[in-house]
């Protein structure tokens, strides 16, 4: 069913709506998490024990990317403000 487009055009002050870019600490956390996903801090060529079916460094990397995903959900919900005239529905 078609609903008339709800895209709002009535926000006068764009900076009044919160956005992740206004919070520098968020990007510091992202840098740390992406850095944790890359196994640069382990000795190259080393064979690690298997953990949850994968080499330990792979499991650590997967853990870091899981954390990035959940952190992103948190950031979107907490620091991305809604539009005043936003409505549900759509094609």
């Amino acid at each position: 069913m078609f609903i008339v487009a709800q895209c709002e055009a009535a926000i006068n002050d764009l900076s009044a709506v919160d956005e992740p870019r206004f919070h520098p600490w968020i990007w510091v956390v992202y840098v740390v998490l992406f850095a944790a996903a890359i196994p640069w801090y382990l000795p190259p060529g080393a064979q690690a024990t298997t953990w949850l079916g994968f080499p330990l460094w792979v499991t650590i990397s997967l853990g870091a990317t899981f954390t990035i995903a959940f952190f992103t959900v948190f950031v979107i919900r907490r620091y991305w403000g809604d539009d005043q005239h936003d409505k549900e529905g759509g094609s």
Partner: protein
Amino acid sequence: MNAIPLGVGAVVFIAVYLVVMLGVGVFARTRRRSDSLTEFYLAGRNLGPFILFFTLYATQYSGNTVLGYPAEAYRLGYAWIMSISFMMAVVVVYLLYAPRLQRLACRHEFVTPGDWVDHRFGSPLLSLVTNLLLVVSLANYLLAQLMAMGHVVAGLSGNVVPYWAGVIVLILVIIIYETLGGLRAVVWTDVLQGLMLFVGLLGLMSAIAPGPAHWHALTEWLHENAPATTAVPSLGVSTRWLSSIVLIGFGAAVYPQAIQRIFAAQGSRALKKSLQLMVFMPIVTMPIVVLVGLTGLRRFRDLGGVEADQVLPMLLRDWAQDSVWTYVMAVLVVTGILAAIMSTADSVLLSLSSILSKDFLGKRFLRDAPGERLTAIGQRISWVLIAVLAAIAFAPRMTLWGLIELKMEILVQVSPVFVLGAIWSRLTARAALIGISVGALLTSASVLMGIRSLWGFHSGLLAWAVNIALCVFLSTFNNLYRLSGEETR
């Protein structure tokens, strides 16, 4: 590509799938309320969270994801889990600029990425250069998808349906449903194609390594027989990992078709919900792709260079002969691969058509033309464009993956205009123009000289760093100069 003799069952299944795609196109045509540009290219700016999520997923995960990435895992081993990080980086980069861009698109009724560049910078030259780079990289990308279509169909049929016939049949299906329904047809088919891709991947997972015990057995085998694949990666690989996160994070985030989906969202809530789902898709998609490549290593040793690209087709051929269950899975996977390729190709084609009709023609030669006329012209442009690219695809001069790599390194050069332009008000048109031009020239020069990387970083990424540095330095210098001029007066 080796033959995948999947038989009549697979051909019937795929034929039904293609007919359904055409049916969706016809249905989308009945739902079109007008022939305006917004209606045709942005589905009336009314995409809800569910549709938005599936169209972003199906568009972003292309034929390369399911055909090329297992081959990379075959070559690199577990280190290819880097693909999870770089696909996730794309969503993170959206958080930087999409909130503002989406609101501005609503307020100022942007249809193409060029509308944003015009609005933000007011520089026809910058818009032209940006659009030229977008068109070059998109045409490259579309060509790669067309070639992938031909390879998959030829492989599926054991070359009974030749490469060129595969290309023609599939592009005809795409162009017909797209002409009928515009973005609405594209996103509705994306829902089906995204589901097909996801089900195909789950089928793959169930066939190769459904649980931790299987993963453990695979890892143990690799540890014994190919220890390099399980060892901690070298510093060079870690550097490539970092380079890919930045290159693909910023490059894929400014795909014009992705930007237009931001424009087409019915509001920020829809966009937020879809991105909250999208950020998990690398985790559910990429490990399967990596496990496919590693399973291929276990089954087929010593596939060198380009041969490794055959890993998935070879596995599918084996599974198709194992049992009825694995045969069904193999057919689903092949359809999922086709869906991944088609869903990317249709979006890229629509984006290209919108840029050429609205930005190149509508803003330069047909300034007084009504939107309906530009829409009609855009539809014709799609047909011409696809015919030209199909002709090139019949006699390709580059490999599939060479094309895709080149595309990303060119595309990332325009990211400052969108990302930095949205978040940094002091970025000037002149600085952006010089930055983009230098970045694109350096990238082209490195490709021509065959320099693909320096110190482990993609050469296109280093060109991008120069591009960003120029944007920041020239904008800051320009602003300081202007301030001191005002003080003097």
